[in-house]
């Protein structure tokens, strides 16, 4: 019998649907597998270049040697990583407080914004490598100097994106708040800050990467002494000793830290926005 009862409709997927499902499965698999395959190939190719051309390890060590160094020098490198991570995270925290704080201040007073925003831009566009030596002349504490360097690089994206967010409030909602006689504080906390949240989180993700860059630059300029050596110092020091394998090992740790930071901030962002913001929605169809 043909299907005549509407409750008995054959819901088996047609050819189109099957093809689409297969593409989606492949894409999901490829998203994780392809980068890993590329990485494995690159490492294998690196190894072959070193072996085929008999390149000495003080010019280019093979991946195996870098891995061995990572294992044997783990104690030194891990201590260095802890220091770099501390600078990075503290700088990021201050960048959030400073960037968001300034954005709110600027938003509350047009006069303050007009007076100081150009200087925030100047601070941002001046390369930190060129400011850093001066900072270490005037700031006595190495830790404070490094934090300041990293902060200068990292605060601006938080400031500019939060400012944009605070100004991107739905006009009708703003009118509605006025009609209901909302106070300035109510408007800020109930309307502007939630509206700015997605923008702020976008700035935060950029600031995370930048604070790591700032921390590395600061370490290179600051040198050792007093506070111990971070990963960037270890790279420089290993370079002087032609310990290229340790340079690669330290570099891979910095890269891993950057990836970890970005992933962590992306997860935070997703958790905060997943219920309501377009960027965190998965399309149903």
């Amino acid at each position, binding site marked *: 019998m043909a299907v005549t009862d509407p409750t008995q409709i054959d819901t088996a997927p047609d050819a189109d649907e099957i093809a689409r499902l297969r593409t989606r499965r492949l894409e999901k698999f490829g998203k994780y597998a392809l980068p890993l395959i590329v990485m494995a190939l690159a490492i294998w190719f690196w190894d072959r270049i070193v072996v085929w051309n008999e390149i000495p390890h003080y010019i280019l060590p093979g991946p195996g040697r870098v891995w061995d160094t990572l294992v044997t020098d783990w104690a030194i490198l891990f201590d260095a990583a802890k220091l770099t991570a501390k600078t990075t995270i503290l700088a990021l925290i201050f960048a959030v407080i400073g960037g968001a704080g300034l954005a709110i201040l600027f938003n509350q007073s047009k006069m303050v914004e007009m007076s100081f925003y150009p200087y925030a831009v100047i601070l941002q566009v001046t390369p930190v490598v060129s400011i850093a030596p001066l900072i270490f002349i005037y700031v006595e504490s190495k830790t404070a100097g490094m934090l300041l360097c990293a902060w200068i690089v990292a605060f601006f994206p938080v400031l500019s994106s939060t400012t944009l967010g605070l100004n991107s409030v*739905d006009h*009708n*909602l703003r*009118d*509605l*708040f*006025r*009609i*209901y*006689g*909302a106070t300035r504080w*109510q408007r800020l906390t*109930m*309307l502007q800050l*939630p509206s700015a*949240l997605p923008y702020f989180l976008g700035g935060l993700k950029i600031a995370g990467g930048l604070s790591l860059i700032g921390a590395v630059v600061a370490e290179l300029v600051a040198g050792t002494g007093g506070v111990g050596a971070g990963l960037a110092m270890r790279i420089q020091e290993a370079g002087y000793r032609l310990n290229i394998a340790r340079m690669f090992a330290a570099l891979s740790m910095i890269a891993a830290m950057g990836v970890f930071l970005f992933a962590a901030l992306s997860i935070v962002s997703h958790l905060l926005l997943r*219920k*309501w*913001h*377009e960027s965190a*929605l998965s399309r149903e169809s």
Partner: protein
Amino acid sequence: MSATDPLMNAPQPAPVVSSISERPGLLSLRGVDKVFNGDVVALKDLNLDVRQGDFMSLLGPSGCGKSTALRIISDLLHPTRGSVEWAGGHSQNDLGVVFQEPTLMPWATVAKNVYLPFRLQGKSYASVKDEILEALKLVGLEKFQNAYPRELSGGMKMRVSIARAMVTRPRLILMDEPFAALDEITRFKLNNDLLELKAKINCTVIFVTHSVFESVFLSDRIVVMAARPGRVLREVQVDAPYPRDEVFRTSAEYAAHCRAASDALHEAMGG
């Protein structure tokens, strides 16, 4: 032509609706002018007497100052000349507003969106929970109180917006082309529900629209406005009794009123 209504010169006969003029006054605009940038005359000598229980539509072509009038009534704009007088004074609780867009806070649930007017008054959620639920029940969304706006359809979002406007039981609800962006089926349904709702909570509505059909179906007073400068051309009264339903929507009486309003609108557009 039987001009039985002194306010009205439309070609269709329209008997006097005595009950409207007997209603107590709520709000009046006296000689309101609004000039923008020194030379754009948005409103010229606008006089309106809004009475308690009115369903008043402001009908007119774009640029006739309908929305400007609403903004002046809601105190978002100050008139250049003239005054807005509330009978017996007024407070923020007297007003509910529905915009053309649902204008919901996307980060808040339906219930929290409806809570907003109370929240801005400093009331705790627990103390007004019953009012919020009641408002959601009136617009038929009590099951969606924990949903986020993005999960709702356009019509449902508009219902939330209406619930928010009426949750404080204001004396006056201003609606600025609230259904213009909706499809016709949803719009008819919301028109019906809005009338039911108004009857239940017994408020006054000023409704801005550029749809003749919508204004006739909903209102008992249609204020037809003309543009450049924005001014009141005349008032058309719709004396059909409430409740109005789908039968009214297809009646000859409805058609006659539409004709009257439409003629007035043509005149407003210089036709």
